[in-house]
């Protein structure tokens, strides 16, 4: 049966009570804010953990309360929270929820109830995750990759309870994400307003859409791995557990394959990198285009690159396993597929630069973060080319070089885009303007600070300093300069950590005291800036859905009255 936009026109039931409006809300904008605040809240926990780790590495013994077990637990929780519970949830649950219906001209997600359920199940997963801090033995210390057999074997912190809360929380998160992801994909496919063809969608929507499809196809691998490891741990099966001697005692398990877990984990884990990166790619394209007052260079190529990167990312997972041992031909295949991704990625980077080229660049805070992203992403991407090669990866694997690489490419880069995006859309979300000076200060400290943190890590890695070590001690191959570098990194990390206070002060203060924002302060052409109210009301568009007549990038069109033409403005 076919309906076009009929589903969008069914009467909206506006909630009457405060609880119905802000707690059990089915409005995509409220759910987006709920998702974002929860993700940022748990992200702050991970941020504090990283500062504790840095204190231990820079000034060993300065905080005697940090034991080696604690350190491993901090590493594991920091990694998992940042990748899954902060970045994935914020980019897809937060920005996906807020932007998709507004940018494609829909009243809401197509399944609002499922959308609401998605948030509450996500919150449950966060609560179960946090419960890990309070169970006997504390959270798991198996590393964010949770490799068996060590993750569930005696000697690893949190091997009895912590790992259970972690795996259970992941399984719950995946159920929440699947409900959200089905919504995002179906809304893009089904609820676009009249005239909004696929190739007229802003690149933010393309990035989020492709990442949602990837998440739907990749997260089941983690789900299967988590359930099977839970069974190994609680029910005594041997999916992943080989026959081993632990603490002098032979275990009852036999025949399981730890490598099988690694394959499942990375079949999820590598696409996950792009699940985080693609929405950031899309959003940064829109920020650059709006603030440079130029149409995005090579729009079609940008879309194709997003889709191709998404597809390729499913055939590169074993490059995380070069040192686990594999047939050399596999290593060759995965190295080639990994390096091939550089082509569509480079297309995107060149197109961003060519959009800036001779643009009317306004260095406002969102633009600063977008340009900062280009720097950090190129650096992180180039070190990725090193690590994609088997022979270079083997000596660098498990050193600080890897830590520097992935923090640059999938830690700092998406975070810079998230900051840029929050500054960019804050006037639409809250109806208020933030403080420009505080924003610029926040950008410069953060941007220069992350370089001070992560560039020296590459040097440490080339020296051979291993990652995940509680303390280096007196080791012959580690020169005193390495200790000095570690101290400098820690100082920089603390400064960057404190500088985030500027962001929170700015956002909270502006929410109540900021000047009223113009409905379209940046002069942007995409639909979300053309809503009748700011912030948009429930239902987004008033009585009539918008009609789209053009793409989202009509900036500085010759002979036009203004330097942008909104998507819903008819041709003359």
């Amino acid at each position, binding site marked *: *049966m*076919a*309906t*076009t936009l009929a*589903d969008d026109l069914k009467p909206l039931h506006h909630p009457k009570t405060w609880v119905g409006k802000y707690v059990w809300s089915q409005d995509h904008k409220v759910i987006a804010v709920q998702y974002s605040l929860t993700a940022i809240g748990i992200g702050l926990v991970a941020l504090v953990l990283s500062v504790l780790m840095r204190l231990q590495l820079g000034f060993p013994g300065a905080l005697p309360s940090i034991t080696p077990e604690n350190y491993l637990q901090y590493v594991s929780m920091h990694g998992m929270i940042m990748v899954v519970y902060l970045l994935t949830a914020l980019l897809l649950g937060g920005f996906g929820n807020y932007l998709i219906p507004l940018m494609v001209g829909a009243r809401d997600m*197509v*399944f609002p109830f499922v959308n609401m359920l998605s948030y509450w199940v996500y919150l449950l997963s966060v609560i179960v995750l946090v419960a890990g801090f309070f169970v006997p033995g504390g959270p798991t210390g198996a590393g964010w990759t949770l490799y068996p057999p060590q993750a569930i074997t005696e000697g690893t912190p949190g091997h009895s309870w912590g790992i259970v809360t972690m795996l259970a929380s992941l399984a719950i998160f995946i159920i929440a994400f*699947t409900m959200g992801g*089905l*919504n995002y*994909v*179906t*809304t893009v*496919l*089904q*609820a676009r307003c*009249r*005239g909004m*063809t*696929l*190739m*007229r969608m802003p690149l933010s929507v393309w990035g989020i859409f492709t990442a949602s*499809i990837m998440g*739907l*196809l990749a997260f*089941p*691998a983690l*789900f*299967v791995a988590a*359930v*099977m490891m839970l*069974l190994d741990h609680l*029910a*005594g*099966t*041997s*999916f992943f*557990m*080989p*026959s081993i001697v632990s603490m002098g005692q032979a275990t009852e398990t*036999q*025949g*399981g*394959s730890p*490598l*099988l877990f690694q*394959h*499942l984990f990375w*079949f999820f884990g590598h696409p996950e990198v792009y699940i985080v990166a693609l929405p950031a790619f899309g959003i940064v394209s829109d920020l650059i285009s709006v603030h440079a007052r130029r*149409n995005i260079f090579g*729009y*079609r190529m940008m*879309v*194709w690159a997003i889709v191709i990167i998404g597809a390729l990312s499913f055939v590169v997972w074993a490059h995380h396993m070069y040192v686990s041992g594999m047939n050399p031909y596999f290593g060759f295949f995965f190295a080639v597929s990994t390096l091939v991704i550089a082509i569509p990625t480079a297309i995107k980077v060149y197109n961003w630069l060519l959009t800036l080229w001779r643009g009317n660049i306004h260095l406002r805070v969102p633009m600063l973060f977008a340009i900062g992203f280009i720097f950090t992403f190129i650096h992180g991407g180039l070190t990725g080319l090193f690590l994609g090669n088997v022979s270079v990866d083997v000596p660098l694997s498990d050193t600080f070089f890897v830590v520097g690489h992935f923090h640059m490419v999938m830690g700092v880069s998406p975070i810079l885009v998230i900051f840029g995006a929050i500054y960019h859309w804050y006037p639409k979300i809250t109806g208020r303007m933030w403080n420009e000076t505080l924003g610029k200060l926040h950008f410069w400290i953060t941007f220069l600070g992350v370089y001070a943190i992560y560039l020296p890590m590459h040097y440490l890695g080339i020296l051979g300093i291993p990652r995940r070590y509680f303390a280096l001690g007196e080791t012959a191959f580690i020169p005193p300069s390495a200790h000095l570098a570690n101290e400098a990194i820690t100082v920089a990390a603390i400064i960057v950590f404190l500088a985030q206070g500027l962001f929170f002060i700015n956002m909270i203060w502006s929410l109540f005291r900021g000047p009223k924002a113009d409905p379209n302060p940046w002069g942007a052409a995409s639909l979300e800036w053309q809503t009748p109210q700011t912030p948009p009301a429930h239902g987004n568009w008033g009585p009539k859905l918008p*009609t789209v*007549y*053009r*793409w989202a*990038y009509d900036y500085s069109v010759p002979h036009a009255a203004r330097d942008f033409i909104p998507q819903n403005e008819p*041709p003359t």
Partner: protein
Amino acid sequence: MSLLSRLAEKSWETPGIDGLAEPDSYRPAAAQVGLYVYFGVACVLFSLIVGAYLVRMGMGVHGAATHGTAGDWRPMPEPPLLWINSAVLVASSLAWEVARRAARTLAWDDIRRMALIGAGLGLLFLAGQLLLWRQYQAGGYYLSANPANAFFFLLTAVHGLHLIGGVVACVRVVGQFGARGDQRRAARNIRLCAVYWHFLLLVWVLLAGLLVST
């Protein structure tokens, strides 16, 4: 318009909405799109477990590939109940097929009867699966006794949970047209339920084939 020509659209050259008029059949209903996208998720979920099944089957006791030598995999027997359950699921799917065809003509009494029979047979299948579990356990085929058993319990549990989801959806849909609400919508949802049932039958046939052939 094919997907390729859509992706090749020069959006910067085509202002206006001429030629973009959308016929009623342009976009399928949201529930239908959502369900088909979910089929993709479920396919990945089941194929990954099956992939793990095949890899684990070839493992020796030390967790490395055996290359032909004996591993610890001991196949499970195939009791008659396995075939009885499969037949029940086929019958359940057939009932849904009749309901799906009846939904075309909006013959509500037929639809309701066949949908309830279909869902009831689905529940019977689930009861049969539970009985099968008990039989295996009584025969010493515990979850932890052998990886073959563990995979069997895991696969049937995941499949069963999907079927429970189907029964819940069915109860909701039957309630929907009981209230004489949007008739077209209810008929569409009945058809989607039937497609979901067929999908689960297909998955079960493939899983049973895997269990029997290995």
